[in-house]
């Protein structure tokens, strides 16, 4: 292998700043991606990883700083300008034309005559190992092949830099192995690959160098030799984790014999297998897992949104078959969805109407009373400290944190005995986050069981009485008291040999 330091730089970032609404997301980063290397980019939520990628691909302009491509200054107003300079991104979800043929997918938008484009597409597809019927529609080929279609598209545009965003997240083992070979073939042609992944074993296996972002700065940038999964995790974790861990007040030991408010027995669905767990009154169970681990699919299956599930769900000591969201709510289970805009809030309606929506949906009265609705909403606005001018303020005009509290109020309006919170603090500011944590504590004090799903390991460590880790659809349990941030992260980020699997379900081979 060539000595990495002698290769020319393909993309160089110098002192790049990106500021959103006065909040710096990138704080003067320096970064070098060299020709012919696979360079892994790591970082947790909010580390600035996706902002960095968007700046390289022309989706964002940096607030300050210089971008150089092949040693020349560059400035991109849109992605097609980055294409013209040889930078091509393969998004996590390939941008395929599902109804057009594979050939059309490969050659769409290219200049030059059709015959020579097709010949080139075929040659490159052979070289990369994309062996599908070129007349098949884009939507009918596997995700792995759709990704290869994207890679060939990039090569057709003479890409010198390929950015692969979580390319392995929806691939099978076999497909990951062959992608690794393809990445090597590409670097042998002098192409630079920026490789983004949550899977530390793959990062260490496939990359030449690794850079880790934390809070908008690079905290590590080194050749892969000598790095360990533990070292990477340590670099990714926030530096103030000591205080975060200490913030959790000592709680009286929960009596093991109180009847569970939520119990899963051998639940299997599209993205998870044989999940069993119990949630007792007044308990916070943390479910840690990276994006794509199957945690949201699990929550949606419990709440009856996805009916294609086997196994049992018990709410308040009763088995609930033929689950629908309505049935679950009637049984006393509430669910805070991950994507509040798409699934949680009525953006164009007054906040009071979102808050009262679930209570109204299950209510018995036929007629609405504006005043009763207002009083009802005011109760939650006070309790959750929602900041708004009036209960009639339209939700769209609220801050993210207050929108999240409105959605939380809607879930709590039913007086649930168990609550599933999926990423309850995503995209909200620090003080709203503390409010959410306080609300969770109040709920548990009142005897409600809370299942918190989060990809932020620090949040899980701070909130949870017990921690479960979901990884590629399989749940593993961390022993009681063994929930240090490092252990949770190691298990969730798939560091080899670190997860303390005490529950290893039978898996069809």
């Amino acid at each position: 292998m060539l000595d990495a330091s002698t290769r020319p730089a393909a993309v160089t970032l110098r002192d790049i700043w990106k500021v959103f609404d006065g909040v710096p997301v990138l704080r003067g980063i320096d970064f070098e991606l060299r020709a012919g290397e696979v360079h892994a980019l790591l970082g947790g939520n909010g580390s600035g990883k996706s902002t960095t990628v968007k700046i390289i691909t022309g989706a964002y302009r940096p607030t300050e700083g210089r971008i150089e491509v092949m040693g020349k200054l560059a400035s991109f107003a849109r992605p097609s300008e980055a294409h013209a300079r040889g930078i091509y991104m393969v998004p996590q979800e390939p941008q395929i034309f599902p109804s057009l043929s594979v050939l059309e997918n490969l050659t769409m938008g290219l200049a030059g005559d059709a015959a020579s484009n097709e010949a080139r597409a075929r040659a490159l597809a052979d070289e990369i190992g994309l062996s599908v019927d070129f007349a098949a529609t884009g939507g009918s080929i596997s995700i792995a092949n759709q990704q290869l279609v994207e890679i060939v598209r990039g090569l057709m545009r003479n890409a010198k830099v390929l950015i692969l965003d979580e390319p392995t997240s929806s691939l099978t083992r076999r497909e990951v192995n062959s992608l690794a070979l393809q990445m090597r073939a590409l670097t042998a042609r002098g192409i630079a690959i920026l490789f983004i992944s949550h899977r530390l074993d793959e990062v260490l296996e496939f990359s030449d160098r690794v850079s880790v972002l934390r809070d908008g700065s690079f905290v590590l940038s080194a050749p892969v030799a000598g790095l360990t999964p533990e070292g990477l995790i340590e670099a990714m974790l926030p530096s103030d984790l000591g205080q975060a861990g200490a913030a959790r007040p000592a709680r009286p030991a929960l009596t093991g014999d109180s009847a569970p408010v939520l119990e899963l027995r051998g639940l299997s669905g599209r993205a998870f297998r044989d999940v069993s767990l119990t949630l007792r009154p007044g308990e916070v169970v943390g479910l840690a897992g990276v994006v794509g681990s199957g945690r949201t699919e699990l929550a949606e299956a419990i709440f009856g949104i996805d009916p294609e599930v086997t196994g049992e769900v018990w709410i308040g000591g009763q088995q609930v078959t033929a689950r629908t969201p309505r049935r679950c709510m009637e049984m006393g289970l509430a669910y805070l969805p991950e994507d509040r805009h798409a699934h949680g809030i009525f953006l164009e309606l007054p906040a009071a109407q979102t808050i009262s929506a679930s209570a109204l949906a299950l209510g018995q009265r036929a007629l609405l009373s504006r005043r009763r609705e207002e009083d009802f909403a005011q109760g939650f606005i006070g309790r959750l400290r929602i900041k708004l001018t009036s209960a009639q303020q339209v939700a769209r005009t609220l801050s993210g944190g207050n929108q999240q509290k409105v959605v939380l109020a809607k879930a709590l309006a039913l007086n649930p005995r168990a609550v599933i919170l999926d990423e309850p603090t995503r995209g909200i500011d620090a003080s709203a986050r503390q409010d959410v944590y306080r609300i969770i504590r109040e709920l548990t004090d009142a005897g409600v069981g809370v299942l918190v799903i989060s990809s932020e390991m620090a949040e899980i460590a701070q909130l949870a009485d017990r921690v479960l880790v979901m990884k590629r659809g399989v749940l593993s349990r961390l022993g009681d008291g063994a929930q240090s941030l490092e252990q949770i992260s190691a298990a969730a980020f798939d560091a080899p040999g670190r997860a303390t699997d005490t529950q290893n379900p039978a898996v069809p081979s």
Partner: protein
Amino acid sequence: MMRIVKSREFLVLALLVTMILAVSTVNKAVLYPITLINIVNSSLFLMLLTVGQMFVILTRGIDVSVGAIAGLSAVIFGFALNAGAPLPLAMLAALATGAVAGMVNGLGVVLIGVPPIIMTLSTLGIYRGLMRVLTGGSWIEQVPPSIKSLAVTRVYSVPVMVWVVLAVVIVTAVLMARIRAARWFYAVGDNRDGAFLLGINAAATEFAAYAFSGLFAGMAAVVFVAQIGFVPMQTGSGQELKAIAAVVLGGVSLMGGTGRIWSAVVGALFLTAVDSMMIFLKVPGSWNNAVAGAVLLSVVIADYLIRRSLRNRQAVARAAEMRGADGPTMRMTEARS
């Protein structure tokens, strides 16, 4: 071969033949060549509207103003002829009227971002109103007979209009297959973000679709005036919905990205044939719309059910494959050592 047989156009064409054969058991006259030619002849107006509509629907838009555009173009055509303009010039005026009216739709949708249904619903009102204002609400009757003779001239006993529209359709189909930018209509409708990322000018593509829709409505106006010899106020009224129905019937997805000229042609032929069959079955004309609507609904539902069962079978097969291959059989680290 199987691809053609499985296509929606083939399904509709087969239904069309079945329907005609079935009606022929009641009334033999339906199989006379002259009858079949007449069906094609009376479908020409709708066919042109439908082909134009297809461009818009390919890009995931919709144009409900095509009937009104045809009406307005017919009025301009009639005015030009009555003012003594030579036929080619009058035709050009009609086509230009249609194209400009379509471009206005395109500008509203692309430049200002008005949702297509709102934009074209508004221009539907505007163009129909303009028609009334220009004519003072009365029909244009004294169209020169020269134009009417166009419609009665026959070549190989087929009206010359049929040949002309056939030529237009074939030329359009060839251009669609040959011109690179024609693929952009599909790309933009199938995945607008993806098209943008590949450097395709999505806005210009959408604009062109509305302009073509208007242009074809202008052509339809010329055919219409030639066939009936005057311009009634109702010209094109209600035809926009028929054009959309025909496009859908032919297999063009309202979600954009799929469809061929073929689909539009077959859809328009079928809807026209349904009307004719009613006459041969001596069903009162008041039933026409109800029957056409029922036919459209049944074809679309049947097609949906067929496709869903196909898709389910594929999904089950793929899930089984995933499960077999995705077991944690081998870790990467082990694979290396």
